[in-house]
C-alpha cells in the first residue's frame, strides 16, 4: 500500500509541476524564449502573495485575485521591454538576459526578505488537511486542489489557443512573425499576451508552492525552474498537456525514489529525465501528435 500511496502522491504533485512548466513551455512554443527567470518569477509571485496577505489581511485565497493579475501585467511589460529587446538581438541573447534577470531577482529577494523561508496559509485546513483512502493512502486537500487547478489551467489555455481569435493569432505568430505582421498583427503585442499568460500560470504555481512547501529566495532556480524544465522535456517541448504528463512522471519517479530511500527522491526524478532524453528525446507527447 505504501507504493500505491507513493504513486498517488506522485500523480498529484505532477499537477504542481505542470503549473511550473506550462508557462515555460508556452513561452518557448510562441517566442522561442527559454525563460531562465521563470522559477524566480514564481517565487516573486509567492512573496507578493505573502506581502499582500500581511498588509491587507485578506484571506489567502482572495490574494490570488491580486497576485495572478499583477504577475500577468509584469509578464506583459517584461516581454515588451527586456525580453523583446533581447529577442531583437537573437534568441541566444534571451538566455543571457533571462539568466541575468534570474540572478538579479534572486539577490534582490535575499536582500529584502533574507534567506529565511516563509509560507502561505499555514494552519488552514486546506493546507494541512487530507482524507484517507484505506489505511495507507492519504489524499491531501491541497494537492488535490492544485491538481484540479492545473487541469483547469491547461483546459483554459487549450481553449484559448485553439478556439479564440487571439489564440489563433498567437499560433500564427508562433508559426511566422513576418507573415502575421503582413496580416496586420503586431507580434510584439501578441508575445506580450503570451508572456502575461505564462506569468499568470507560474504565479499560480508560485503561490501553490508557498502553500505546499516553504518559500525562500533560491527556490526559484534550484527547485521550480529545474522541475519545470524536467517536466517540459519529459512531456515534449511545446506541448501543453505534455507538461502535465511530464509533471506526473517526474512526481511519481520522485515519490518512488523516496520510498526506496528518502535521499533518492531527487535522483530518481533526474534518472527518469535522462532516460526519456535517451530513449525519446522529443518527449512523451510530441508536438505533432498533440495538435
Amino acid at each position, binding site marked *: 500500500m505504501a507504493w500505491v500511496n507513493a504513486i498517488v502522491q506522485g500523480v498529484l504533485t505532477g499537477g504542481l509541476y505542470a503549473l511550473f512548466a506550462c508557462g515555460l513551455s508556452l513561452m518557448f512554443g510562441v517566442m522561442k524564449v527559454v525563460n531562465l527567470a521563470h522559477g524566480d518569477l514564481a517565487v516573486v509571485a509567492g512573496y507578493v502573495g505573502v506581502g499582500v496577505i500581511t498588509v491587507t489581511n485578506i484571506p489567502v485565497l482572495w490574494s490570488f485575485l491580486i497576485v495572478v493579475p499583477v504577475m500577468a501585467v509584469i509578464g506583459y511589460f517584461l516581454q515588451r521591454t527586456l525580453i523583446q529587446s533581447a529577442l531583437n538581438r537573437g534568441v541566444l541573447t534571451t538566455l543571457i538576459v533571462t539568466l541575468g534577470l534570474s540572478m538579479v531577482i534572486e539577490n534582490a529577494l535575499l536582500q529584502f526578505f533574507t534567506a529565511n523561508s516563509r509560507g502561505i496559509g499555514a494552519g488552514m485546513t486546506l493546507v494541512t488537511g487530507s482524507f484517507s483512502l484505506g489505511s495507507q493512502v492519504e489524499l491531501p486537500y491541497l494537492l488535490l486542489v492544485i491538481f484540479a487547478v492545473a487541469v483547469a489551467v491547461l483546459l483554459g489555455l487549450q481553449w484559448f489557443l485553439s478556439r479564440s*481569435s487571439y489564440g*489563433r*493569432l498567437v*499560433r*500564427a505568430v*508562433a*508559426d*511566422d512573425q*513576418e*507573415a*502575421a*505582421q*503582413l*496580416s*496586420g*498583427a*503586431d*507580434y510584439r503585442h501578441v508575445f506580450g499576451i503570451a508572456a502575461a499568460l505564462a506569468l499568470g500560470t507560474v504565479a499560480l504555481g508560485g503561490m501553490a508552492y508557498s502553500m505546499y512547501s516553504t518559500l525562500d529566495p533560491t527556490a526559484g532556480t534550484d527547485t521550480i525552474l529545474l522541475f519545470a524544465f524536467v517536466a517540459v522535456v519529459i512531456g515534449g517541448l511545446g506541448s501543453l498537456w505534455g507538461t502535465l504528463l511530464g509533471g506526473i512522471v517526474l512526481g511519481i519517479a520522485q515519490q518512488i525514489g523516496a520510498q526506496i530511500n528518502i535521499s533518492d527522491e531527487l535522483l530518481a526524478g533526474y534518472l527518469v529525465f535522462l532516460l526519456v532524453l535517451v530513449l525519446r528525446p522529443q518527449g512523451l507527447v510530441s508536438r505533432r501528435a498533440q*495538435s
Partner: protein
Amino acid sequence: MTAAANGGRPDNDTPLLEVADLTVYHGQLRALDAISLKVYPGEVYAIIGANGAGKSTLLRTIAGLHHSTTGRVLLDGADVTALRPERRARQGIVMVPEGRRLFGSLSVEENLKVGATYARPGPWTIERVYETFDWMRGRRSQRTAQLSGGEQQTVAIGRALVANPRVLLLDELSLGLAPVIVQRIYGMLPQILATGLTVLLVEQDVSQALRVASRLQCLLEGRTTLEGTPADVTAEQVEAAYFGLTGAAAVLGEGSES
C-alpha cells in the same frame, strides 16, 4: 486593364500608391537606388527584373518589412514611411509574400481568419473567397501543408484578400509552380481586380508580367532601367533593360507621359 486601354495612366488622379526616391541598403550593399513609382487605382503595375535586381526588396520595403535610407512611401497621398508593417497592412497595403508563408500549424480556414482579423471593411469575406475558389471550402479544415503548391498560393492570396486591401502586393506568385498553375493563378486576376483592388506585382516571368500588367518597370541592380506600358515596350528593349545590355537606361515611359 482599364488603364492600359487608355494608353497609360490618368495624369490628374492622385496615385493610390506612390514610392518616391526610395533607397535601401542591405548592410553595405545598395539594394535599391532612388526608385520611384506611381500606381493608380485599378492598375496592375508590374516590377520585372532578374534575380537580385531588388524587386522583392522594393515590395518588402513598401510593405514595411525593410527600412529605407531615404525616400517615402505614400498611400493615397498619406505618408506611411514611418509605419510598421502591421499598421500599413491595416491601412490597406497587404502583401502576399514570396514563398507563400502560410501559417503551417493552422488550417486553411484559420489562415483566412487570421487574414481577416484586422480587415478593413470591403467586399471580401471568407465566404467570398470560398465562392471564388470553390475547391477551398471542402478542404478548409485541412492543414496547409497538405495542399499542393498552387493551392497554397491561392490560400495565401485569399488570406490577403480577406483583409480587403487597397493595394495588393504580389511577390513572385510563379515561384516554384508549374507553368499551367501559374497561368491559372494569373487568370484569376481580372476577377480580383473587378472588386476594386489595385495590384503591384513582382515577377521574374517577364512574359507573364507583360500579359497582365497595365504598366511596368524593369529593375537592374537596384536601378530603374525601363518604364512604360506593355504596348509601348518592345521585346528588345525589355531584354536590354532586363540584362543591362545597353549602358544607357531606356526610360521609355518618359516619352509617352509628357
